[in-house]
């Protein structure tokens, strides 16, 4: 499992620096370096096998259901990239140790860096594309963290976000592309996909897959027009720029194009998309780089340009071009990382990266000068350095590649790109190091210590070594990698410094000389560039984001205007539309024989319609609305009576009474009229909506009622007594057959009461208490707060009502009645006491707290149900039996009656709790004086006028 270990080592090691920082900065850096070195050694242990031409494959099934297996592959390409990542990683860790300030949290930095390193190694060693995608996203994420590392810098935050947005978009596109690719190939394993090139290219889904994958590659590798995030990512600390944004992460896109080269390349689509994008990127970025004054921005655009060069070579689709691409990846990684590090050294020493404020550093920083100059000359393509060799190969390939049948566009543009590349490289040397020494540097520049210089110096040594002896130093590696990229199609190439007098050499010379001449007339060129108007992608990106945000705002505020009528209207329209759309084929009327309506049914029907019309007419008058609504309830209960359902009728009537009383109490504090809020147009529309909704509901009811269906009521009737022990089927259904529903419903009732308590409790606190106290009744009050007749009548009725309630509760199982109705009857009797005698008088005499009564009711019902468990029966299984108590006749007792008692208690408690809370508000609002009904006590001593005074 060495391969998995190589990829996992940096992840596991990422914890260490954050811990080791407590023991010091050196320990921290050494740990990070040690982790990297360990992974590198593991890689080198495997290297000889790869060198012999083997492809190592290690596989663990992880999530076969998703086609995701932890499969790792090591071939030449993987070895090359992993070596690059870990090798340069080591140098960057070394460099960063001396680069970071004392105030910078170093542990966190190395942790992030190792996280990134692990993700990168994971990408290049993955055999499973889904796993590759996971690592791919992780690089975006760790790069996000690293770019935003200096959190005090706002440009760092913006840059981080932009990089994440662009590469994140590409990553998602790539997930899509890879899934399609896997779907075509029938496997997500690269080792399979790479053998299915022909099938993939023949598939109709080839183009979409290609586009999506390339979108991922282009965004990651900063290809035009997605290049703009990279320069903004330069807000990151320089070691990050050197590592992520020049040597490794931005090469991930390139890596993937190289990896998938055998499966995807060779088609015209591939050629035109990839090579054109690369070419355009190379030229445009090179031009922009020349005119950048920030040293790191210059290097950033030059990176973009060189990535374009490599992309173009891969796009050519020939094995030779692929070999050139591989060679340039290696060369670019060495000289560009060295340049970034040099830029960081200059920045550190001179406290500025602005080229216009630099110049003449050659004598002040001689060592840095040499390192940077050699690297820059390599970048320019000067002979005897490695940049020259790969650029020669590129130009050579360009010469042989026609574009739309024309021979000249690619060579010409490639030369232009090379020319600008030479120009900005020379500018870097000339405008930073050469020229007269200045006396206005922000800080006194000096060469850094060996710690900071070691890493770039080592890289530059590589630049020279490859440049002087390419075949010996890099030849074997390049051929090995090219072989892996092309799937064995590449001929081994002999890397040479001198190819003879070729066209490519001439182009190279033109580029170098032209670059020099261009720089000589730099002031002129800058003026011309300014006049031309710079095309910058960032404003476009920002404008795009702003546009999206504005659209989101517009759309959201249109959708969420926030008024309830609008939302309700939208809801109703949607419901209606769906309801109508849902009616498929078939006639509305069913086959059942219809009955003629009896005359007696027509009267309540007419009453109902009349009430509805009246409600529509008088809806401003809230008192009328309460009354009209109760008429509807009464008509419904009449219907129940007519259909011989006395239980339901009783329930309905008592519910009407209770709710009407409670609503009237609440209405007391509300305005008595509602304002006219709608214009005639809207009103018409709302009326239409209501009409359609009503007709729709009626049509559905009609459709159901005209159809015969099986029914379950025969069973209920048959089993009510033998199974449930009661002859009142309705009650047995409520407390036994479907007692579980009733249990839920009394809980709903209990919650509603608690909800009223909670709501009104809020009204008596804070600012709303002030509003309640300062409230002035808008209606005249009766002088007689507690009318004598009413008080006497209700007190007289109370015991009678309680007995009736008890009677209804007890007989409910066999005769019309039950806990619910009984609860309502008792509640009404008690409500009448409140109405007649007032809150205080009644509250003093209540037997128990209403919260407790509700809780008790729910508990009684629940425990009755749970009691069945004692007999090992399911919840709510009922039992009944007959009991004889001496003075009474034999009577029945059923567990269902205890359940009904719970219902009863809950109902009474809930109604009274609601009432109590409304009254509490009333007491605050009306601040009544002495609140005693019948406060004339004839039995007491009559009070005299003096005593009162």
């Amino acid at each position: 499992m060495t391969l998995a270990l190589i990829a996992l080592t940096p992840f596991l090691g990422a914890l260490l620096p954050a811990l080791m920082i407590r023991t010091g900065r050196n320990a921290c850096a050494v740990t990070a370096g040690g982790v990297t070195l360990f992974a590198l050694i593991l890689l080198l242990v495997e290297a000889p096998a790869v060198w012999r031409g083997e492809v190592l494959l290690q596989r663990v099934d992880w999530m076969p259901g998703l086609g995701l297996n932890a499969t790792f592959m090591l071939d030449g390409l993987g070895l090359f990239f992993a070596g690059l990542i870990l090798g340069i990683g080591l140098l960057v860790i070394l460099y960063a140790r001396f680069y970071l300030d004392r105030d910078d949290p170093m542990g966190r930095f190395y942790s992030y860096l190792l996280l990134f390193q692990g993700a990168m190694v994971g990408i290049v060693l993955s055999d499973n594309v889904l796993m590759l995608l996971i690592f791919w996203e992780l690089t975006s994420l760790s790069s996000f963290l690293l770019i935003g590392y200096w959190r005090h810098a706002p440009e760092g935050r913006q840059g981080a976000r932009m990089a994440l947005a662009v590469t994140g978009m590409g990553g998602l596109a790539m997930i899509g592309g890879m899934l399609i690719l896997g779907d075509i190939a029938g496997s997500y394993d690269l080792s399979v996909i790479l053998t299915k090139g022909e099938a993939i290219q023949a598939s109709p889904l080839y183009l979409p897959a290609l586009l999506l994958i390339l979108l991922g590659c282009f965004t990651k590798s900063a290809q035009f027009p997605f290049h703009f995030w990279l320069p903004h990512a330069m807000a990151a600390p320089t070691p990050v720029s050197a590592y992520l944004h020049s040597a490794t992460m931005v090469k991930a896109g390139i890596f993937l194009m190289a990896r998938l080269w055998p499966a995807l390349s060779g088609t015209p689509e591939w050629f035109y998309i990839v090579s054109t994008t690369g070419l355009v990127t190379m030229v445009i970025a090179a031009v922009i780089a020349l005119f950048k004054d920030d040293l790191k921005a210059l290097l950033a655009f030059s990176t973009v340009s060189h990535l374009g060069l490599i992309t173009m070579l891969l796009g050519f689709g020939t094995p030779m071009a692929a070999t050139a691409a591989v060679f340039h990846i290696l060369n670019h990684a060495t000289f560009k990382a060295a340049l970034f590090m040099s830029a960081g050294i200059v920045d550190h020493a001179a406290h500025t990266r602005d080229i216009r404020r630099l110049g003449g550093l050659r004598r002040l920083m001689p060592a840095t000068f040499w390192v940077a100059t050699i690297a820059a000359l390599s970048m320019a393509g000067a002979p005897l350095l490695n940049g020259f060799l790969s650029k020669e190969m590129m130009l050579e390939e360009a010469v042989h590649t026609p574009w739309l049948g024309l021979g000249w566009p690619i060579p010409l543009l490639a030369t232009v790109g090379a020319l600008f590349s030479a120009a900005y490289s020379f500018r870097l040397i000339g405008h930073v190091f050469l020229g007269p020494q200045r006396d206005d540097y922000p800080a006194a520049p000096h060469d850094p210590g060996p710690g900071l210089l070691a890493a770039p110096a080592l890289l530059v040594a590589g630049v020279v070594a490859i440049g002087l002896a390419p075949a010996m130093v890099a030849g074997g590696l390049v051929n090995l990698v090219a072989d892996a990229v092309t799937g064995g199609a590449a001929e081994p190439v002999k890397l040479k410094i001198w190819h003879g007098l070729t066209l490519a050499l001439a182009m190279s010379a033109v580029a170098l000389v032209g670059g020099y001449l261009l720089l000589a007339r730099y002031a002129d060129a800058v003026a011309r560039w300014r006049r031309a108007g710079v095309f910058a992608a960032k404003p476009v990106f920002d404008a795009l984001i702003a546009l999206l945000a504005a659209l989101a705002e517009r759309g959201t505020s249109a959708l969420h205007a926030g008024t309830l009528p609008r939302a309700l209207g939208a809801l109703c329209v949607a419901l209606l539309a769906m309801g109508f759309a849902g009616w498929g084929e078939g006639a509305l009327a069913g086959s059942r024989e219809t009955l003629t309506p009896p005359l007696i049914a027509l009267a309540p029907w007419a009453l109902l319609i009349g009430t509805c019309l009246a409600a529509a007419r008088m809806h401003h008058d809230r008192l009328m609305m309460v009354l009209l609504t109760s008429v509807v309830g009464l008509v419904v209960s009449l219907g129940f009576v007519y259909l011989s359902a006395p239980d339901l009728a009783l329930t309905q009537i008592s519910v009407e009474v209770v709710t009407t009383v409670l609503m009237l109490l609440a209405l007391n504090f509300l305005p008595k009229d509602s304002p006219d809020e709608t214009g005639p147009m809207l009103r018409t529309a709302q009326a239409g909506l209501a009409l359609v909704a009503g007709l729709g509901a009626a049509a559905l009811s009609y459709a159901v009622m005209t159809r015969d269906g099986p029914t379950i009521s025969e069973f209920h009737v048959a089993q009510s007594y033998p199974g449930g022990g009661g002859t009142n089927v309705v009650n047995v259904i409520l407390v036994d057959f479907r007692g579980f529903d009733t249990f839920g419903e009394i809980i709903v009732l209990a919650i509603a009461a608690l909800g009223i308590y909670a709501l009104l409790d809020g009204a008596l606190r804070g600012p709303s208490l002030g509003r309640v106290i300062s409230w002035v009744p808008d209606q005249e009050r009766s002088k007689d707060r507690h009318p004598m007749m009413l008080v006497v009548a209700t007190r007289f009725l109370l015991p009678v009502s309680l007995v009736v309630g008890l009677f209804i509760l007890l007989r409910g199982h066999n005769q019309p009645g039950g806990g619910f109705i009984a609860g309502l009857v008792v509640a009404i009797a008690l409500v009448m006491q409140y109405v007649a005698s007032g809150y205080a008088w009644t509250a003093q005499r209540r037997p128990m707290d209403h919260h407790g009564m509700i809780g008790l009711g729910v508990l009684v019902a629940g425990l009755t149900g749970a009691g069945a468990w004692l007999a090992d029966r399911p919840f709510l299984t009922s039992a009944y039996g007959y009991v004889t108590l001496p003075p009474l006749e034999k009577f029945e007792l059923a567990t269902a009656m205890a359940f009904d008692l719970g219902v009863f208690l809950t109902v009474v408690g809930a109604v009274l709790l609601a009432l109590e809370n409304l009254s509490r508000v009333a007491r605050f609002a009306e601040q009544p004086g002495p609140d005693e009904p019948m406060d004339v006590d004839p039995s007491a001593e009559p009070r005299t006028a003096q005593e009162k005074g």
Partner: protein
Amino acid sequence: MSWSLFLPLMIPFAAAALAVLGPRAGFEARWISVGGSALHLAAAINLAVVVAGEGVVAAQMGGWAAPVGVTLAADALAAIMVLAVAFMGLAVAVYALADIDRRRASAHWHALYQLLLAGASGAFLTGDLFNLYVWFEVMLIASFGLLVIGGDRAQIDGGVKYVALNLVATLCFLVAVGLIHGQTGTLNMADLSVKIAERPSAALDAASVLLFAAFAAKAGFFPLFFWLPAAYHTPPMAVTAIFAAVLTKAGVYAIFRVFTLIFPESPALDALLWIAIATMVTGVIGAGAHTDARRILSFHIVSQIGYMALGLALATPLAIAGAIVYMVHNIVVKANLILIAGVQRRMTGAHDLVKAGGLYAAAPLLAFLFFVSAMAMAGVPPLSGFWGKLALAQASVSAEAWAALAATLGVGLFTLYSMTKIWLLGYLSPHASGRAHAVKALPRGARLALMGPVAALAATSAALGLNPGPLLEAAGTAAAQLLDPTAYVAAVLGAHG
């Protein structure tokens, strides 16, 4: 068997009753709530073990054999949902120890909280259509209470909109149940499954669409989700968090249950793909328009509901399993982000990110936990959000549903955008006031209660991300049971029939 099905329901009810009665005897309701939630979780784990061992289990309330009485039944999906909700219930109950003040507690906040959990458990476990309605009502009323307790103006305003819009949906549900009962004479879901397969009709189709609309409104599908952003940002964060974990998910669950078991051929399903996509897109757009952390997160709830809907729209085993994985992930992570938003508010003094900031420097642990959760939410691999999304994307590719693929991936990008918005404004940027110590530390007593659940949920998300195998497997079982309901029907009807 009957016990294991019923305990996850009974325990929160008992806890609620005790939370009302307890304070009178000197017990604090908040600790009763925590204890009840812990037992609830234990019961849910027990149920999950039973279901994993025995397959679909059923119990008949009142001992009446299936189509007559009310049935409780649990398959893998129900067990997963109960477990997820019980887990969140405990986490939020602990958070509420510090988040819910005395005033709210005395207004029965904790009792209502337990009732909400009870209602949700009932909805997941019931095998009866009308009983489902009852549990939805329990949830609605309890959530309304939680929404308005201690209410300031904004809370009451949001609460009224919430309850009005939801009541319309509930009414629609009831009408549909009536229409279905009128034609089939039964309310038992398994029985309905058999009867309707034998005798489909246009009137039943229409009823099924009404039912779908009702659930869609509860779940927050486009275009029926307006109640959600109108209300979710107003109450304390503990309330919003449990709402995010429970309410919309119960709607989604109901759709999964009813439209695989009873109406697998409903015409509503033809439109589901586009409804799902529209839900994903409108939600994420809404989030883009806001800078208030609570509103951003509320809109994302809507958006992510779309992913779950997509699973049913594609209706392949992989898609449904993906949707279930996504739902579990979403329950954990979204609620956690909301809890974190509550901590953010306490420390920075503002919900609006423009007025906040500075948390990265002042609270590195919180920053770390937020970052993990936010990236999980955006579906960044290998965190928990990635797996469901990946499965859905794979299913979209197999079904050649390209719009679905584009939405699945694209919406993730916008989610990432929103999450980085919170990260950059709330964490990386210095506090908007510019003062050095503008970010306050959490009070000592509250720290553990607030940060404990946040850390536990972030760890859960990370665990689901790094080792998604068990969840994927369970979701696969659940998907198989949904797509072939014979086992469910046999467990409900066969046991006594």
